[in-house]
C-alpha cells in the first residue's frame, strides 16, 4: 500500500526562533494590563464604598425612649 499522502505533505518547519520572545513579551504585557485593571478596580470599589454610609438601624443604635410605657 502506498504511503499516506497527508504524511508526505505534513509541514516539518521549525518554529521561528524569535516567536517565543514575541509571545512572552505579549504575555508579560497582558499580565501588566490585568494587574493595572485589578488595581484600578480595587481602588474604584474602595472609593465607591467610602462614599456609602449605612443608614439602616442596627441593634447597637441608641433607641429613642419608648413613649408608650413611661408610666410608673
Amino acid at each position, binding site marked *: 500500500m*502506498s504511503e*499516506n*499522502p*497527508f*504524511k*508526505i*505533505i*505534513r*509541514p*516539518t*518547519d*521549525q*518554529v*521561528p526562533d524569535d*516567536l*517565543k520572545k*514575541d*509571545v*512572552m513579551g*505579549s*504575555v*508579560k504585557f*497582558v*499580565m501588566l494590563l*490585568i494587574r493595572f485593571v485589578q488595581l484600578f478596580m480595587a481602588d474604584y470599589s474602595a472609593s465607591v464604598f467610602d462614599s456609602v454610609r449605612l443608614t439602616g438601624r442596627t441593634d447597637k443604635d441608641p433607641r429613642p425612649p419608648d413613649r408608650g410605657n413611661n408610666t410608673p
Partner: protein
Amino acid sequence: MPIRDQAAKDKALSDEELVAELQRHMDADRFGVLYDRYSALVFQKCLGMTRDRDLAKDLTHDIFLKAFVNLGKFDHRSKFGTWLYRITYNYCLDHLRKAQRRRTDDIDEHPVKDGLADDRYEAELLALRAERLGAVLEALDPEDRALLLMKYMEDLSVKEMMEVLELGESAVKMRMLRARERALGKYRELYPEEA
C-alpha cells in the same frame, strides 16, 4: 526558591499541574514551559491550515496569547493539549473564513447511517499523489481542510475530534464524510483527465 530550581521544578510538572499553578498565580516563565511543549505542534497546525509561514507565525502568537488570557476558563475536564488544539482549530478557521469571505454551506447534522461509517471515499483520497493532494487541500473550504488534516495528518481519533470540535460522534462522522466527498469533487475538477 532560586529561579533555576523553579524552572527545573516546572519542567517536571504535567501540563494540567502547570495550568493549575498558573490558575493560582500568573507567571510568564511558567507559561513559557507550556509554550516550549506545544509551540511546534501549534505552529505546524497553523502552517498546515494556512500554507503561509508568516501567517502561521502570527496565528501561533495570537493563539498562545488567547490561551494565556483564557487559562482561567480551563476546567480540567479535557487534556490541556486538546483544549489548546481546540483554540488553534477555531482561531485558524475563523481567520481563514474572514480572509476568504466565502459562504460556507450549512452542514446537516442528521445521524449517520450505519452503512456510511465505512467511508467509501477514504481509499480513493489516500491514493492521491501528494502534490495533487496539496492543490486539492488548497482549493477546499478551510473547515473541510482542517477536518481532513486532523484525521489523516495528525491521526486524531473520532473521540479526540469530538472533543476538539465539541460535536457528537455522528456529526463528526458526517462532517468527515462530506469533507472527503468535497475533496474528491475538487480533485475531479482540478484533474479531470484522471477522473
